[in-house]
């Protein structure tokens, strides 16, 4: 395998895993503090038990996220030294602030985990809130740095030299807001549905129902609301991409030819060689409308871009379809849950719980495919229209072995975490029985 391919694959695998750990670590504290709040208010033991169970989850994911984050902060340099040499100073601002936010999170976590019965109750609870807020801040800042790769700003680039660097302008690049909004909502959707799904499965199996219902209700409320808001944020993102990164838009829609009143493709099999999409459903003029708010707007096709500036089409198109499909499905299921608050008897059916169990992995699948759209859709650029990915890769040969090492590490991490969580739930249920 070539060095560049190995490096790209390694980066992809690392990020795919890290995103899961990071999102859960970022969203779960919110569930935890709500349960904690209910315990303080109602003094029902069951909320205390739930808070402590979730707290263990938060701690496990924080440590895993910190370990994989440490590896990642080095990997950026190890794999893409040329990129970091130039981009490091420019996008350093969000990274240094992220470091600070992460640190605050670690301190708050220390207070929270070890503060039971030692700290004043309200202050203790508040440290939990800080964990959540600083976690979301970290997430937003990291996404802002990624936004810069899509919409580079805050510098002048001439003859391979970066000058007039303005870190604030770089941080507040044109993509940061849409991306951060979309990602934060996605984190809540994915984690919310995953956590709710795990508890729904326990209810489905008839284990410790009272506790799991309380847990389910807290998680699903976040998930449902975020899932309903997500399509709006998705629309903003699509319009933004249409304006800023037309090649990405063309790839995710698999449009080869430029046309006015472009149709929207749903599904379909991409034939990259013959530049065709077969077996698709076509909605006339819909793409022009969705991208530009005008049924007759011109949408640029891939063939308008030089061959060496076209992103891979098939993977981007498929990923985009999966993301949007799941997004729509989860919004419907979210709405379904909110309606079930009015028609309570729905929740008496076992199938209700089965439905939410099946939803558990979907949010994360959408989140991962969404990142594939962003990252692969930007190729061949690492800094959009400034630096190509192939010019950023490390000169050291043999990255293939590094790829194997890191993949192994992350697979082990994931197995460990899943196994530990399964054991937590088992013990939780046993104590109840």
């Amino acid at each position, binding site marked *: 395998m070539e060095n560049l391919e190995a490096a790209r694959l390694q980066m992809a695998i690392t990020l795919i895993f890290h995103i899961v750990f990071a999102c859960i670590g970022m969203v779960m504290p919110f569930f935890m503090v709500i349960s904690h709040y209910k315990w303080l208010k109602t003094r029902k033991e069951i909320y205390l038990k739930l808070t402590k169970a979730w707290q*263990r989850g938060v*701690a496990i994911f*924080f*440590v*895993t996220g*910190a*370990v994989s984050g*440490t*590896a990642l*902060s*080095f990997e*950026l*340099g*190890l794999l893409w*030294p040329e990129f*970091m*040499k*130039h981009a*490091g*100073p*420019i996008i*350093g601002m969000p*990274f*240094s*602030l992220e*470091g*600070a936010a*992460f*640190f*605050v999170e*670690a*301190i*708050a976590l*220390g*207070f929270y*985990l*070890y*503060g039971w019965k030692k*700290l004043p109750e309200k202050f203790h609870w508040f440290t939990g809130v800080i964990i959540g807020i600083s976690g979301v801040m970290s997430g937003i800042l990291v996404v802002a740095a990624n936004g810069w790769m899509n919409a580079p700003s805050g510098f002048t680039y001439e003859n391979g030299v970066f000058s*007039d*660097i*303005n*870190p*604030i302008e770089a941080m507040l690049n044109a993509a940061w807001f849409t991306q951060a909004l979309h990602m934060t909502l996605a984190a809540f959707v994915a984690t919310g549905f995953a956590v709710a799904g795990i508890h729904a499965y326990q209810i489905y199996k008839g284990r410790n129902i009272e506790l799991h219902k309380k847990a389910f209700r807290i998680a699903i409320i976040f998930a449902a609301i975020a899932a309903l808001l997500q399509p709006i944020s998705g629309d903003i993102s699509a319009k933004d991409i249409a304006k800023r990164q037309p090649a990405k838009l063309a790839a995710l829609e698999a449009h080869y030819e430029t046309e006015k009143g472009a149709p929207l493709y749903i599904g379909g099999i991409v034939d990259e060689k013959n530049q065709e999409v077969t077996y698709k459903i076509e909605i006339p003029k819909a793409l022009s409308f969705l991208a530009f708010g005008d049924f007759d707007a011109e949408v640029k096709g891939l063939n308008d871009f030089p061959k060496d500036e076209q992103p891979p089409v098939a993977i981007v198109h498929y990923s985009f379809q999966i993301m949007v499909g799941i997004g729509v499905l989860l919004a419907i299921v979210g709405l379904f849950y909110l309606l079930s608050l009015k028609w309570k008897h729905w929740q008496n059916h076992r199938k209700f719980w089965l439905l939410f169990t099946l939803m558990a992995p979907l949010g994360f699948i959408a989140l991962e495919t969404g990142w594939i759209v962003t990252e692969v859709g930007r190729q061949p650029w690492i800094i959009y229209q400034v630096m190509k990915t192939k010019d950023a890769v490390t*000169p*050291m*040969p*043999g990255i293939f072995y*590094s790829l194997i*090492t890191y993949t192994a*590490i992350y697979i*082990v*991490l994931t197995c*460990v*975490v899943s196994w*530990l969580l399964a*054991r*937590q739930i088992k*013990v*939780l249920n046993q104590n109840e029985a």
Partner: protein
Amino acid sequence: MLTVVLFFLFFSLFLYVLLAGADFGGGIIELFSSPKNQEKTKKTIYRVMGPIWEANHIWIIILIVILWIGFPQYFNIFVVYLHIPITLMLLGITIRGLAFIFRHYDAVKGRSQGSYNALFKLGSILSPLFLGIIFGGLIGGHINLFSENPNLSFKEIYIDGWFNIFSLLIGLFYITLCAFIAANFLIGEASDENELNLYRKKASYSTIALVLIGFVILVYGYFNEIAFVIDFIENKYSIIAVVISGIVLIPLWEMIKQKRKAWARILAGVQVFLVVSAAMLAHFPDVIITSTKEISILEGVAPDSVIQFLGIALLIGGAIILPGLYHLMKSFQLIKLFK
């Protein structure tokens, strides 16, 4: 502002060496204890280090972020030529993190604890070993730049720079330093006379080993004409720092004998501070030494505008983080205030 940035760079390096060192050291002490004492040590370590465990390891992220933002050229050499030991160090950190999670968050406390402990000890050795090797590689004068000679082989470029006796000695030195920090730290936390004696013994062994390895490094470096060591010996500030650190050992031992935890900890911290300072002073600002030249960290420093913002971010971050960290340590009695 550059001074502020350099200060934070040094400060986070020092805190990482000290706090993560104490943490790594705990695992190393566990390794060198009898099975019965291991369990005791493990409990004490967790009780003491638990609340700040997460925070300790974030200093390395701060360190790396400051490097890549403020000193991109330096960071570039670091990640290109020391790719392999950095990866191995990350492996060590990961193994350790894993074992830590296992040890403390496995809901079932069963036989599997044995293998978690083994992993934990392995990680506790690997991480500081490779951290030391990386540092040794940076200053050892064995790095061969391919920009100067395009015909070099893979081994000459990517392995010789760090895989040598000098780097290995620095690795051993850091392992011993970790054990030293942890032992002195744990003395203040022992629950009974028996445990106290255990840590005292470890503290004295590690001190002796530290002095010995330090001496071997100087002798080896001197006779092999390693630029860093020669400059170290010729630099009066480094020598002063080393001499003071030797003198500080005397009050340190006195305080341990009198069981004055706060002072013992402060003096052990001062020791580490002096060692890190001595190493930094010897060569500052040329903190990369290759086989042909010395490269200053200030060479290719980021533009002024970047350093300005970085400095401000660090000051604000520091103003939020440091009091928080202080209160965290105080709340859990990691800092014993003087009575």
